[in-house]
C-alpha cells in the first residue's frame, strides 16, 4: 500500500512465523538492490519501504513489492535465530519508578515481578522509536498491563519498561508512557558501533538481575569505555 509519495507499507497477515517472514522479506529487498528503494523498516506486522519517488511510477514499485512478497516461500522464512544477549538489569526500587505499582496491579511482590521479567527469554521484534531501542516480546502474561494513562515527558536513559505484551529498554533520555521496572547500564546505541544499534530484530535477550552496587560499577565502567556487552557464545 502506498502511504505517501515516498513510502509503501507492506502488511503481512498473521502468521506463526511472522518475524521470520518479515526478516526474509527485508533480506530479499536488500538482495534485489532495487535502485528505487532507499530504506526498509521492520515493525510488528509490517515492512515500511522508503522509496526514491523520482525513480519509478508508484504502480510499478507497488507491483514489484507485491511480486517479491508473493515469491516469499516458507523455506525463505528466517527463524528468529539471531545472537543471544544477557542484559544486566537492576530492579532496585530507586531505579524502578513503577515496580511497586506494577506489582500491586499484578497482585505479586516486587521480587516476583523481577523474577518473572528476568526468567523469560525475549525476541527482539523491532528496533525503533528511539535510536537502538529494542521492542522485546513476549512479556509473561502475568505482567501484561496497558500503558500509563499519562506519559512521562522524560525518562532516564537505560530505563527498562513494560506495557502490553512487550518490554523495552530506552537507550536515551526520552518521553515514555510505559511502566518502568528497572534500569540497565548497557549502551544500546553507539556511533562507534557497526551497526550503531547493538541489537537486531531476531536477536534473543534475557535479563540478568544485578544489585544496586553492581549496577553502579557497570555504569561507571561503561562511562569509562572499559566495558561493553558482548553476545553470549551459545543460544539459551
Amino acid at each position: 500500500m502506498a502511504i505517501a509519495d515516498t513510502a509503501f507499507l507492506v502488511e503481512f497477515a498473521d502468521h506463526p512465523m511472522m518475524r521470520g517472514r518479515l526478516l526474509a522479506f527485508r533480506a530479499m529487498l536488500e538482495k534485489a538492490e532495487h535502485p528505487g528503494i532507499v530504506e526498509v523498516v521492520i515493525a510488528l506486522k509490517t515492512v515500511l519501504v522508503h522509496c526514491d519517488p523520482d525513480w519509478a511510477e508508484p504502480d510499478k514499485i507497488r507491483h514489484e513489492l507485491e511480486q517479491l512478497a508473493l515469491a516469499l516461500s516458507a523455506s525463505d522464512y528466517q527463524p528468529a535465530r539471531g545472537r543471544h544477549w544477557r542484559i544486566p538489569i537492576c530492579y532496585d526500587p530507586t531505579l524502578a519508578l513503577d515496580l511497586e505499582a506494577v506489582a500491586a496491579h499484578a497482585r505479586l511482590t516486587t521480587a516476583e515481578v523481577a523474577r518473572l521479567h528476568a526468567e523469560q527469554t525475549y525476541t527482539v521484534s523491532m528496533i525503533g522509536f528511539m535510536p537502538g531501542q529494542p521492542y522485546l516480546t513476549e512479556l509473561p502474561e502475568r505482567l501484561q498491563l496497558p500503558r500509563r494513562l499519562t506519559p512521562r515527558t522524560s525518562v532516564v536513559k537505560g530505563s527498562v519498561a513494560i506495557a502490553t505484551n512487550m518490554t523495552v529498554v530506552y537507550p536515551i533520555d526520552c518521553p515514555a508512557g510505559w511502566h518502568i521496572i528497572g534500569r540497565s547500564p548497557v549502551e544500546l546505541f553507539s556511533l562507534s558501533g557497526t551497526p550503531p544499534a547493538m541489537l537486531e530484530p531476531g536477536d534473543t535477550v534475557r535479563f540478568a538481575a544485578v544489585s544496586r552496587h553492581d549496577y553502579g560499577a557497570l555504569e561507571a565502567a561503561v562511562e569509562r569505555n572499559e566495558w561493553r556487552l558482548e553476545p553470549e557464545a551459545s543460544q539459551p
Partner: protein
Amino acid sequence: MIDGLRVESAGTSTTVQDQGRVGYQRYGIPIGGALDRVSLMAANTVVGNDVGTAALECLYQGPVLRVTARSVRVAIAGAGAQLEITDRHGDRHIVAALESVRVMRDEIIRVRLKGPGMSAYLAVEGGLAVTQVLGSYSTFSRARIGGYAGRPVQDGDSLPVRQSHASERDEVRLANVSLKPGRSVRIMPGPQVDAFMPGSIEALCEQPYVVSPACDRMGMRLAGPKLSHRHAPDIPSEGMVSGSIQVPGDGQPIVLLADCQTIGGYAKIGIVISADLPLLGRLGPGHQISFSLCTIEEAKAARKELAAEIAGWRAKLEPLGNAHSFSRLYSTNLISGVADAMYADW
C-alpha cells in the same frame, strides 16, 4: 581551529541542518534535516553552495553571531526573515532574505524572524566546518548526534566555517522566488484512515486547524475539530514517515516532522505529501493550517514541479552590483517598511 562565527546569542533553537540522514531508520535514527528544505536550498543557492550544504536552522528567535573569520558571505532564507548587520562603527544595515552579503571580521549578524514564518536558514559560503555523522551534518539533539556537538548552539560557541574569507564576486539576489508560509497543505489518506469514524478525513479537510504551542522538530500538535476513532487509537506499532498525521486518544491530530520517531503506535489518518513538507517547517504556534486531499499522482506531479522550480533558481540569480556588496545603501527603517508592506497580505 578555523575561525568562523561566534555565537553572541543563541536564539530559541538554532541547529546545524542539511538534507538529513538517510539509511539509518532501521536502527531507530530519523532522517531529520531541515524542517523547510526549500528555504535551506534557496539560502545555499544565493551564496553559491550546493543546495544541500549544511546551514543554520533558526527557529522562532534567531541568533546573533560575531564574524571571527576574515570575512564570510551569508544569506538568509525564510518567510519574513532578514539579516541585520552591525558594522564596526556600530551602524546597522538590513539585508533582505535571498540576498547575499559579505560580512567582515568583528561585524555582527543578527537573524531577524519577523514572522509570518517561524523558521529561517542562514547559509555560509563554503559551508560550516562541522563533522559528518552517519552521512549527514544534521543535528539530532535528542540523541546528541551530528551538527555542532550534537545540540543546538549556545552562547559563546564558535562555529568554524570551511572558507577563511568570502570569495571575490558580486553579491546576488534570488529574484521572483517566494517562500510563503504554507497555510494549505495537501495530504494522502493515511494507512489507518478506516480506523476513524466515517467522514473523519473529510472533517480534517473541512476546517482549518491551529498549531498549538506544543511543537518542536519532532512534531506539531494541532487544535481543531475532534477526530474520533472507531475503536481505540492504538495500532500495532509500525514504521513512520515524516508528514504522518497521527491521532492519539484525545482526537487532536499531531503532524510528525523531520525528527519524528521511526516507529509509532497511533492510527494515522493522513500523510502530508513530500512536496508540501517544507511548508510545515514554516508554521509555528497560532498559525492556521488547512488540509486538502490529493492523489499519489498529484503528489508526484507536485514534487516534480517543485524540483523543476528549484533547478531553475540559478538562472534567477541577479547581480546586486558592487554598491550592494554590503547593502549599505539601505537604511534600517526604509527596508523594514518595504518588507512589512511585502508581507502584509500574508
